[in-house]
């Protein structure tokens, strides 16, 4: 659209927060590369324009999907102008992309973000001089100190053409002109020629498919064959790099050398940092479990009291059983169970997770564990998708787009469901508490949990390795990773993102899924054929096979019925055992334990159930996400691979 404004810049320059401020919205922000994968578009409040948030990229060299999206949008979509965001403390690095973009479009505003950090870091930046040298409209901006909002809104309403021109040496200019003369008129011929020299295959293919124009026609091909295009392409990159350096030297003064953060030094090159990392993970679990316990108990009690109240009410008003039983004992119980058991740990986990994400800890994890990835023949960034799998597997599947290479991405997606997500943690914790620890000793529970999580990670890497040697042969693509500086994060931002945008949205999804699921399960357990509920008939049928792998028919059927959401496995197991008998308390551990014990559970059943929870088909949401990301075939594989792994693993476990 003509009234679109493109927001672009390097990764980690705070584009997303500018987007949020201009559109008064709450899109997610993050501190690691490749956060914005979908092009979000929203109206800029106070104007008639729409802001398009392009993915953060380092250059226009068409090496990753994100770069392609950004570049094609800039080249071929209809828009008014560009806002180019730079980090005030990282001008030199950020200018590279600006010079590349100036070859495409000059209607551009330079937005210098994080202007407030200059003082803290003893940096002097002469923004007036920068504006003069480049002949560009400069807006100083700070999301933290609310600087520059009005100026930016005013600038957006105008056209601001950058007056800066730069040329390569005579030889390269000659080549560019010659190639231009072979190209059809009407395109940005200069840029197209440079792209041809840079061997930009994606662009060539795109233009051919969309406009039917072959940029690499015979004339061009012949011409390129007779010149050293790699050398020329190198010189083009070097020229742009030199330009950024020269401009930066004019305007940017740093009085102290860069100090590497103490944390980075502590964490590097010492084996004990592995122990430290494990300890931190243990601590995270311990905090989550301990803190979550109180609100969980409280909520559970409240819900039970309310249920009893409604139940009495129904009796008083003579409401028929057929109406209140499915609603109260089916839907209400499953929904409230999910809220009381799942929500508190979810919130606490996401608070810590958001902190790790926003502060810059996550890329450090990838940095430190890259060696393991390289051993298992997968991409170093797989650690990042693994970590986000702890929150939600479906989110991690989308996040795998940060990998440039399709093979790496598929491996990361297929092995992600081994990582227990927030929907599975509550059940794993409950079973550990009831059967492995036998008491409320939170420290022991956390240690067991750490053990299972480490096992899950090992299996995930192992399967990655096996996949890379079988159906996904090949080598991982090039690994380089930027480690952003540690950032101080506002508590209010952490709370807002973790509670409102993550926990509540996941909870909402889980509740929506569990309403029909609760009803169906109640019906299955209460509709009788020959004096046996449908649930019982099916679970008896599955029982023989399930016993071989250490489970029972009821558990297996519960996992199958919980396909829409992993959160409801435990409630279904309990409802399955209880059938249509009346129960009052299902949210307290001792109550659950006695039900399970009465139905033949042993420590072995408990361990097998946890293992099966780690290794079985991913939930419905994840599967449909995989389908839309990489297609039916791989969705099928992602269903079958963890399932087979789980069955094989349990068979081995039960026969040793």
């Amino acid at each position, binding site marked *: 659209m003509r009234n679109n404004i493109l927001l672009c810049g390097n990764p980690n320059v705070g584009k997303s927060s500018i987007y949020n401020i201009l559109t008064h919205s709450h899109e997610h922000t993050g501190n690691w590369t490749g956060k914005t994968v979908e092009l979000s578009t929203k109206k800029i409040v106070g104007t008639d324009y729409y802001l398009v948030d392009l993915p953060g990229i*380092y*250059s226009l*060299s068409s*090496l990753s999907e994100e770069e392609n999206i950004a570049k094609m949008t800039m080249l071929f979509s209809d828009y008014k102008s560009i806002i180019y965001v730079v980090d005030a*403390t*990282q001008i*030199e*690095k950020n200018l*590279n992309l600006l010079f590349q973009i100036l070859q495409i479009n000059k209607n551009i505003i330079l937005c210098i973000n994080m202007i407030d950090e200059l003082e803290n870091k003893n940096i002097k930046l002469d923004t007036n001089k920068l504006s003069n040298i480049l002949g560009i409209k400069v807006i100083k901006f700070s999301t933290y100190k609310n600087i520059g909002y009005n100026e930016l809104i005013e600038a957006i309403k105008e056209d601001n053409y950058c007056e800066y021109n730069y040329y390569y040496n005579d030889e390269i200019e000659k080549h560019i002109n010659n190639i231009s003369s072979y190209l059809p008129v009407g395109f940005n011929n200069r840029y197209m020629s440079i792209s041809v020299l840079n061997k930009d295959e994606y662009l060539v293919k795109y233009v051919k498919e969309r406009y039917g124009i072959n940029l690499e026609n015979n004339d061009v091909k012949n011409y390129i064959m007779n010149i050293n295009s*790699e050398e020329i392409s*190198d010189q083009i*990159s*070097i020229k742009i*790099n*030199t330009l950024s*350096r020269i401009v930066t030297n004019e305007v940017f003064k*740093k009085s102290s050398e*860069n100090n*590497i953060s103490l944390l*980075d*030094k502590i*964490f*590097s*090159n*010492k*084996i004990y*940092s*592995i122990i430290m990392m494990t300890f931190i993970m243990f601590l995270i679990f311990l905090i989550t479990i301990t803190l979550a316990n109180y609100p969980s108990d409280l909520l559970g009690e409240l819900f039970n009291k309310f249920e009893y109240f409604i139940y009495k009410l129904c009796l008083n008003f003579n409401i028929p059983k057929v109406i209140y039983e499915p609603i109260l004992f089916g839907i209400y119980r499953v929904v409230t169970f999910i809220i009381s058991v799942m929500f508190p740990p979810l919130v606490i986990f996401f608070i810590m997770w958001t902190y790790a994400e926003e502060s810059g800890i996550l890329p450090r994890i990838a*940095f*430190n*564990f*890259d*060696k*393991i990835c*390289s051993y298992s023949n997968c991409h*170093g960034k797989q650690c990042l998708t693994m970590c986000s799998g702890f929150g939600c597997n479906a989110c991690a599947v989308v996040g795998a787009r940060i990998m440039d290479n399709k093979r790496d991405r598929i491996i990361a997606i297929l092995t992600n469901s081994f990582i227990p997500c927030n929907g599975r943690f509550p059940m794993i914790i409950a079973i550990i508490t009831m059967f492995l620890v036998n008491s409320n000793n939170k420290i022991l529970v956390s240690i067991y949990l750490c053990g299972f999580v480490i096992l899950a990670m090992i299996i995930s890497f192992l399967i990655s390795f096996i996949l890379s040697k079988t159906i996904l042969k090949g080598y991982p*693509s*090039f*690994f*380089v*990773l*930027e*480690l*952003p*500086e540690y950032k101080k994060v506002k508590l209010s931002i952490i709370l807002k993102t973790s509670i409102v945008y993550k926990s509540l949205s996941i909870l909402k999804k889980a509740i929506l899924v569990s309403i029909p699921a609760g009803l169906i399960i109640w019906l299955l357990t209460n509709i009788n054929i020959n004096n046996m509920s449908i649930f019982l008939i099916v679970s008896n049928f599955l029982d023989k096979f399930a016993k071989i792998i250490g489970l029972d028919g009821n558990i297996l059927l519960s996992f199958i019925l919980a396909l829409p959401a992993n959160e409801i496995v435990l409630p279904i197991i309990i409802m399955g055992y209880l059938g249509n008998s009346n129960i009052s308390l299902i949210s307290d551990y001792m109550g659950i334990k006695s039900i399970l014990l009465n139905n033949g559970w042993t420590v072995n059943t408990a361990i097998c159930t946890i293992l099966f929870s780690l290794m079985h088909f991913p939930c419905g949401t994840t599967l449909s996400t995989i389908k839309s990301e990489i297609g039916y075939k791989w969705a099928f594989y992602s269903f079958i691979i963890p399932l087979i792994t789980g069955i094989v693993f349990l068979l081995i476990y039960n026969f040793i």
Partner: protein
Amino acid sequence: MNLYEADFNKPVIIKNINLHGMKKRRLYDLGFINGEKIVKEFESIFKNPICYQVKNTLIAVRNEDAMSIEVEYEK
């Protein structure tokens, strides 16, 4: 000398990158380019990759790749 062999905390200048295609482009994009100043900063737990500072940013590069980057000490 290649970048992997360089001493820690001692700035070097990139002479040449003996890689081609996509790898070279990626390194260029991040500032690993002829004439640029680089400082080897710190190792990861397993000593591979290593973190380098270029253009005021920390970038992790695997050792195999760092070996293909020709450098010399700043004069």
